């Protein structure tokens, strides 16, 4: 009796597996796209991926963080299909730009933030430069309370920092200061430390911290599109020179008007089609032709 049951169960399993295998064979093959790199861009990519599943169910997309440097070196090595990055490949040592193709998928504003209790809401570009080069060390020198300035910088080589230094420092060397890697930690620290100043992606802004205006201009999407707000950077997706069809289609979808107007906007990035200016790797800005 026992033996019969065993035989029946085994037979059922084998038949089940066989049917499953045949069914799987009939499905169109899954094409895989791997996106690795910028952790700032990761939430946006994940949100788009979720929607893309309904558009193109036979593409399987994996999204991973790891940092812009990792993304660029992995895509250069051919280990992943897309390397996402907050900075131009030209700005990174050890990357062969000729091998890669740049796709801009969003524009991200960068906003200086200070502690809420400080009472300062506006600084000029020069004042920001003086703070970040260590020439000004007390808020009193800028019309604030008598409080030492706690400068919090971003990790060396990170996209946000490279973009910030390109616009603010203009080649001068930054003061030796605290370095933090993630937008979340930076926000937490600035919210808790009196006299702290730092900068984060606009997507991460929250009422915990006080965003600064630069010379009276606020970091709105509209001001970014005209470069009146100068602190912004592109979010790139780099591929090898000849990306696969699935990769190309995913990037096209990411750049499509529909995604740019919905998901990108909701994530507090700026629509790439709205931009009236363009920036090159050296930081030069000019009107879009």
């Amino acid at each position, binding site marked *: 009796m026992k033996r019969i049951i065993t035989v029946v169960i085994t037979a059922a399993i084998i038949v089940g597996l066989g049917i499953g295998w045949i069914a799987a064979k009939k499905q169109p093959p899954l094409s895989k796209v791997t996106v690795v790199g910028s952790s700032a861009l990761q939430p946006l990519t994940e949100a788009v991926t979720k929607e893309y599943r309904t558009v193109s169910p036979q593409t399987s997309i994996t999204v991973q963080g790891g940092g812009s*440097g990792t993304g660029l070196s992995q895509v250069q*090595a051919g280990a992943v299909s897309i390397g996402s990055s907050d900075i131009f490949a030209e700005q990174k040592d050890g990357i062969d730009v000729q091998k890669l193709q740049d796709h801009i998928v969003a524009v991200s504003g960068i906003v200086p933030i200070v502690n809420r209790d400080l009472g300062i809401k506006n600084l000029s570009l020069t004042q920001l430069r003086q703070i970040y080069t260590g020439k000004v060390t007390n808020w009193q020198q800028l019309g604030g309370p008598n409080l030492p300035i706690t400068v919090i910088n971003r990790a060396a080589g990170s996209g946000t920092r490279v973009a910030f230094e390109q616009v603010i420092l203009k080649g001068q060397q930054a003061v030796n200061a605290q370095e933090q890697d993630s937008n979340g930690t930076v926000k937490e620290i600035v919210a808790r430390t009196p006299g702290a100043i730092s900068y984060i992606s606009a997507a991460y802004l929250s009422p915990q911290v006080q965003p600064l205006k630069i010379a009276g201009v606020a970091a709105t999407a509209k001001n970014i599109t005209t470069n009146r707000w100068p602190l912004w950077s592109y979010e790139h997706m780099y591929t090898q020179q000849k990306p696969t069809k699935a990769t190309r289609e995913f990037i096209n979808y990411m750049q499509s008007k529909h995604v740019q107007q919905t998901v990108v906007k909701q994530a507090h990035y700026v629509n790439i089609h709205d931009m009236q200016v363009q920036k090159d790797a050296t930081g030069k800005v000019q009107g879009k032709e």
Partner: protein
Amino acid sequence: MDDLQKQLTQPSPESHQEWTGKIISSLAIILIGSLVLAILVFLTIKGIALFTDNGISIWRFLSQTDWQPSHQHYGALPMIVTSFSVTILAGVVALPLTLVVAVAITEILPKKMTGLFQPLIELLVGVPSVVYGYLGLTIIVPELQRLFGGTGFGILAATGVLFLMILPTMTSMTVDSLNAVPKQYRQASAGLGATRWQTISRVIVPSARDGILTAAVFGMARAFGEALAVQMVIGNTAVMPKGLIESSATLTSVLTTGIGNSVMGTADNNALWSLALILLIMSLIFNLLIHLVSKKGVA
């Protein structure tokens, strides 16, 4: 007759079992051994690339205090000093408390309380380090800020977090080593008319000394290698620590912030691998220390 002879001269199924077991376990050992070896070789090759390919001298790397990878300054001394200060301070603060708690659990508290405390401590061992880091960032750092002024980030905050992290591990190891002291020691000591304090301080703790030291070294090894929790509270400023409440950076915190932002094969990246190599060498030394200490054990 033939059958019996055959049965006796041929290997039995049980001996086959022995053989299969032996093969499987040696395969497992070879696998683990080669994994460890691969890690060692890989890290060494990557770690010395800075000195062989990028022409930075080891001596400068170890003795200079200027760490600015973007300007080709690779001086690792500040991180080495900070890593050691944090580790040693955490160990020194944690050791006495561990000892008191462990003695209380094994010798003084009634059995019921022990049954309550021990699982509690073991539970703390399993708490992920990011939780300790977050506690540090939201409680310890602001508190230090209030007490001493400044930002609150620095070696002292890291010591506090690491102290919390290694305390449970060290305590449960110390409890085990105190429990391993034979009952007869206690009985003999009581028979000689010693008080409980005398028994604890002169008999039990000295005979468990090596176990306690092993626990301390083990805890410090964990503190030395901890990255995430420390990174959240140390401040990540790669300069020589000027005080306990000044922002500084450890080997691990520089590694975690930097590795994703540099490109494989560049000097910046190689410098980070060299830091990792230092970490590896140090943890090997900690391991060696544990072996040396526990070898001479009595209890």
